[in-house]
């Protein structure tokens, strides 16, 4: 294949990269007054990228650039999802930034580069590409967390995130080097073949695998590599937390799929066991510690950790149907998570974050509709039928049962019951407690519309779950 023909498949990334550079320059030239312009351009760029991904979609697996870049149905779906989820995320973030005086083009520009990194990860054909994409993503995120330089909490969070991220990154790289040493290849497909072909290097392979798993677990925020999550979620500006909590999770899932499934399916017996430990610990710690939180951003952080535990269940099944269930879970999760943070943004006002649980008290009296929106979000996160979150849990739990881990399914159900407590507590606060103040919620019409659609989609898609599941199954190739 000629280079031009190969680059054809990279058009979306190229568009995003050049677009991001253009935005960077324009933002610098046009100055701060024009920052809404930066925002608009960013959204258009995301739309164009998503369109381009669909445009170049080959409909099958295509490997280009010497095996470094893969475009397959899985990659296409995840990349389109990343772009499309980023759209409302930037929308909510924009609203927050406006309100809280974070008039900074960096938010969007860093976001775009982070998305570029995610796209690279989702299309990675070698361990090196995975690492490249991951670093681009991570570095952008560190900067984003620190964006509000005047905030001590944000700076602290960014510092923690950076140091721990560097540690994790180092471990991942170390693991990659081990794998390379054992097999002599960085290509994921070649890696799988090499592993399948040899039996005498299991020690080094397992050693490398463990380090790689640590890298993935850190990115996902699975226990015990989750310590950064609550501090970063709480410390970062909410618009950044919103971003971190939703879009990169899809990328982390893509990374897990690429490395574990594409590259090390023959070692499934090993990584299944490791993921089970991570998953169980995540479900336990996430659901239990969330109960003790009074800050809703922190509570969502632990909620995320528990959701990661559930998400891992699908991968643990180590079968295509399980991967589809996990993918379904991550997409549903990103929808719920951004809705939840959007509610936090909505309740906050100029200079004041509404990030405490008690800010939700009596919301039904102040604004019945938004209380209802939050109710949908919370019920969905708790896994109450018929909301989408129920189906997400249902599918992964069914898959682990089919894969022969009924105990694991039992643990998952048990801790989802415990988890229901802190979600439903919010509903109780909204509907049964007296509000601390009676000010009506101020919001733009666009904000109301997007948030309502966000929440209602959980209900509507939940009434007909095969719709979204069909996409996931198709992407996995079922």
């Amino acid at each position, binding site marked *: 294949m000629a280079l031009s023909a190969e680059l054809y498949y990279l058009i979306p990334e190229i568009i995003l990269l050049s677009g991001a550079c253009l935005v960077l320059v324009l933002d610098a030239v046009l100055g701060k007054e024009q920052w809404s312009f930066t925002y608009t351009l960013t959204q258009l760029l995301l739309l164009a990228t998503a369109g381009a991904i669909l445009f170049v979609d080959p409909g099958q697996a295509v490997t280009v650039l010497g095996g470094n870049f893969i475009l397959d149905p899985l990659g296409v779906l995840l990349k389109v999802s990343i772009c499309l989820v980023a759209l409302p995320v930037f929308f909510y973030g924009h609203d927050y930034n406006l309100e809280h005086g974070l008039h900074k083009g960096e938010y969007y520009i860093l976001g775009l580069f982070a998305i570029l990194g995610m796209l690279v990860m989702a299309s990675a054909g070698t361990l090196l590409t995975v690492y490249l994409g991951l670093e681009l993503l991570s570095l952008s995120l560190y900067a984003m967390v620190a964006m509000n330089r005047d905030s001590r909490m944000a700076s602290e969070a960014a510092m923690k995130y950076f*140091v721990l991220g560097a540690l994790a990154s180092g471990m991942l790289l170390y693991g990659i080097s081990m794998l390379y040493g054992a097999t002599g290849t960085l290509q994921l497909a070649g890696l799988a073949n090499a592993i399948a072909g040899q039996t005498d290097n*299991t020690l080094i392979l397992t*050693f490398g695998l463990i380090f790689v798993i640590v890298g993935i677990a850190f990115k996902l925020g699975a226990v015990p590599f989750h310590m950064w999550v*609550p501090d970063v979620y709480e410390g970062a500006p909410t618009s950044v937390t919103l971003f971190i909590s939703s879009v990169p999770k899809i990328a982390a899932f893509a990374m897990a799929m690429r490395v574990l499934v594409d590259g090390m399916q023959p070692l499934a017996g090993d990584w299944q066991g490791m993921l089970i430990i991570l998953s169980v610990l995540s479900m336990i710690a996430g659901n239990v510690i969330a109960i*003790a939180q009074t800050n809703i951003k922190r509570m969502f952080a632990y909620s995320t950790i528990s959701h990661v535990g559930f998400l891992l269940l699908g991968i643990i099944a180590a079968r295509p149907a399980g991967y589809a269930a996990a993918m379904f879970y991550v997409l549903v999760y990103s929808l719920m998570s951004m809705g939840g943070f959007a509610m936090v943004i909505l309740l906050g006002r100029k200079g004041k974050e509404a990030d405490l649980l008690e800010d939700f008290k009596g919301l039904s009296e102040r604004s019945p509709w938004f209380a209802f929106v939050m109710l949908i979000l919370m019920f969905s996160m708790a896994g109450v039928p018929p909301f989408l979150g129920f189906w997400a849990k249902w599918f992964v739990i069914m898959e682990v049962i089919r894969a022969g881990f009924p105990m694991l399914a039992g643990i998952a159900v048990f801790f989802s019951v415990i988890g229901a407590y802190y979600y439903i507590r919010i509903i109780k606060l909204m509907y049964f407690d007296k509000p601390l103040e009676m000010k009506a919620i101020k919001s733009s019409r666009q904000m109301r519309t997007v948030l309502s659609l966000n929440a209602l989609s959980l209900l509507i898609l939940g009434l007909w779950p095969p719709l979204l599941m069909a996409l996931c199954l198709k992407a996995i190739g079922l």
Partner: protein
Amino acid sequence: MSDTIYLAIVLAPLIGAVIAGLFGRVIGRSGAHWVTIAGVGIAAILSLVVYKHVVFDGAAVHNAALYTWLKTGGLSIEVGFLIDRLSATMMVVVTFVSWMIHIYTIGYMHDDPGYQRFFSYMSLFTFAMLMLVMSNNFMQLFFGWEGVGLVSYLLIGFWFKRETAIFANLKAFLVNRVGDFGFLLGIAAILMYFHSLDYATVFAMAPGLAATTIEIFEGREWLLMSFICICLFIGAMGKSAQVPLHVWLPDSMEGPTPISALIHAATMVTAGIFMVARMSPLYELSETALSMVLIVGAITAFFMGLVGLVQNDIKRVVAYSTLSQLGYMTVALGASAYAAAIFHLVTHAFFKALLFLGAGSVIIAMHHEQDMRRMGGLSRYLPVTWITCLVGSLALIGFPGTAGFFSKDAIIEAVHESQRFGSGFAYVAVLAGVFVTALYSFRLFFLTFHGAPRMDHHTREHLHESPKVVTVPLTVLAIPSAVLGWFLAGPMLYQGYFQDAIHVAHENDVLGEMAEGYHGTWQFLLHAFGAPVIYIAFAGVLTAWLLYLKYPHVPAQLAERFDFLYRILVNKYGFDSAYQKLFAEGARRIGEGLWRAGDITIIDDICVNGSGHVVRWCAGLLRRLQSGFLYDYAFAMIIGLLLLLGYFLPWASLLG
């Protein structure tokens, strides 16, 4: 006679009840009373038609299933009617008394906000009672039985904002539950041994099972028939308010007066009497059960009458009188004089409804004052009420010639004839009861209508006779109370009126023996003057006159002198407080204990909140791991890594 008529009799009140109950707001107050009165009126007139057909035209007994509700195994549960002389008589009594009371209610409940609801309940009550008396099987009997129980609950608590009314209706319901439980056991036993719930089948099989015994507790053999009959009678004790299940009836006076009349005179309380008469083929097989019936009835007849002596609430006196009269009927049943029981039931229905409505009329005139100590001298203001109440009271005490005379005399005579175990005691009890009846009846009459007026000035100025809707039913009821005996006594008691509807074994047939000495009603009347009964009654009236008109200060002195006895009577022998303490309190204690131990401690504290606390405690503990220090976080990651390495690395291959 087609099924359609029977069905119409039952359904007309039901339809009226449904319309008045569900569409009361649409049809308004007058709409509600018109539609229910029309419904019950249709039932009453058609009942008369049926009565004529059955009694005068001598039609065959109608016994057919109308509708099969369900079939399960070999059992089919049906809705069916058995129309013979017994049920035809009951139908007429029930529908007519109910009809009169419906009309009376227009006046009595005139200003009540729950007007439509009240009419709806009353018609529903009539429906349930008709289902009960017309049934041809035990299941439908039970349906009607529970139906009247339910509606009586609703009606006693009709003024549901009064705490006493709620207490009373709950009490009535609970006490009846006790009875109903026995009743249900009886029905279950019938089903178990007869494999059928159809009257005809059961009665036909009964003689074959007369010698069957059952063993419920180890080593104790009981005659099956005794067991069944006693269980059924426990049900009757609940509904017909026999000691010791009588406690609900006086309290049920909390309901509006028309209800007191409807429930206590004509219908619900007679359900038990009717049922035992209907089951006569079974009871005749158990001497034990009949003795029990006899003794329970005698106790009720005498001792409840005594309590009536010390009551001051006009309605409560009538209520205790009802208890006592029900005792008479039960005694008659126990003496195998079923016909006499039903006869007394019929006459009592009229004069007791009359007395209740008369009391109601007084209460209206007195602006809902029910205490007789604040009445007196009302005869001047309420002439119609006065004269009708006099008729009712005379009938109640068995004044020669009135309806009550014939029925009560027959009962006393029957007990006298009976050789059954307990009949000696019963005879003494009913004779003494006559004196007591006369005394409390005329105590009520004198205190209310004669003597010095004791009401306040304001009330006295506004005293006037009740409206026509009240006085007309009074008059209409007074006539049969006075003269009914002349027409019914002969046929019902002695001339085989009930034919096969009531079965009496030859050796038990006391009425049959009495029939040999019966030579017409006049003879009966004259014969009575040779017996002690009417003199005892006169003595009672005389005593009442002496105590309450001539020397009105004496009763208080007597009460003081015989303080102990007086206290016992006022406390109604302590039944109420005993039940209250033992059963009500006991049940509540047990319930509260179980609630504390089971619900609060085990379920709430340990299971629900306990697990919650454990989780919360764990949460508090685990969150401390999140110290906020970077080195702790990094340390955690390293630990995690090491654990994974330690657990998953193939150490065996490494070391080996």
